[in-house]
């Protein structure tokens, strides 16, 4: 019973981060707030965090998951969450002086980088608790079925979509601007504004 719980908690973990990353896309495309370089670093850290439970899910293909694999999965997540939290703290501190309105629009009263920091803290707590009860939560008697395939596929699609969007944002320039306000690739190719060709991305 608890073995199944550990299995589905890993799915919930990956799905939660997929939701967060899709939410980031929603903010980007609906409100028009383009992610800054630190926001993109946080997205990367979220993906690294999700590799942990993804690894645990995929190990069920070979039958029961070993305790060592379970510990390795959530260990990877903790390390990546600490890195992500460091990036988020860096961005929070950049905008902490009171007159600074912060970067982007606040969601539910907090900026996205603050939410990112909260998610990384939640991950550390979740992984810690999972490792405390690791013997009980190691997936046993479960099958790698279609829900697992959907979760894995969704995650890979989101990583690929991020890669494409970042390429559109950076274009062929060496520099991703610290305060981006347009997709450089369209301006570089003169789809929207022929005059922008001479501008390019600068820092």
């Amino acid at each position, binding site marked *: 019973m608890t073995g199944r719980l550990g299995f589905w908690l890993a799915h919930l973990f990956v799905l939660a981060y997929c939701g967060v990353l899709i939410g980031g896309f929603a903010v980007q495309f609906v409100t028009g707030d383009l992610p800054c370089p630190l926001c993109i670093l946080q997205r*990367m850290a979220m993906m*690294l965090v999700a590799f942990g439970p993804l*690894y645990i899910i*995929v190990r069920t293909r070979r039958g029961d998951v070993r305790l060592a694999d379970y510990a390795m999965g959530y260990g990877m997540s903790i390390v990546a969450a600490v890195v992500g939290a460091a990036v988020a703290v860096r961005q929070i501190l950049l905008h902490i002086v009171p007159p600074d309105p912060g970067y982007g629009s606040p969601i539910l009263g907090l900026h996205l980088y603050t939410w990112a920091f909260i998610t990384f803290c939640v991950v550390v707590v979740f992984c810690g608790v999972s490792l405390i009860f690791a013997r009980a939560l190691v997936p046993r008697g479960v099958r790698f079925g279609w829900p697992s395939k959907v979760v894995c596929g969704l995650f*890979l699609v989101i990583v690929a979509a991020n890669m494409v969007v970042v390429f559109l944002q950076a274009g062929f320039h060496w520099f*991703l601007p610290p305060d981006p306000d347009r997709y450089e690739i369209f301006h570089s190719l003169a789809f929207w504004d022929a005059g922008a060709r001479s501008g390019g991305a600068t820092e």
Partner: protein
Amino acid sequence: MASARRCVAGCDLAPLRRRGRSRFGLMFGRRSSWFLIPARSSRFGHYFEQMATILFAVLLVAGWLVVRGSGRGTVLAAWTVSLVAILLLFNYHVGAKLPLNF
């Protein structure tokens, strides 16, 4: 003769020094070594912004390796490479000039 403020690669160290920081960012302190990544404006420093697209590609490959059920060592190696690349990019941003209008 070049100014004492400028390094060989031509980057201005004064703004970072005013903020009490080396050009290599907070993570590596003030010592410079050949393996450290210049924070900005050097010949090689430019490559670490464009790395965002490449890094997502690395993450995609690592994710694919995880999903296809590669061995423990392979997964760990791919994950570690991604993590180190992210840390290098973060180090680059930590050392970059900021428009702090204090």
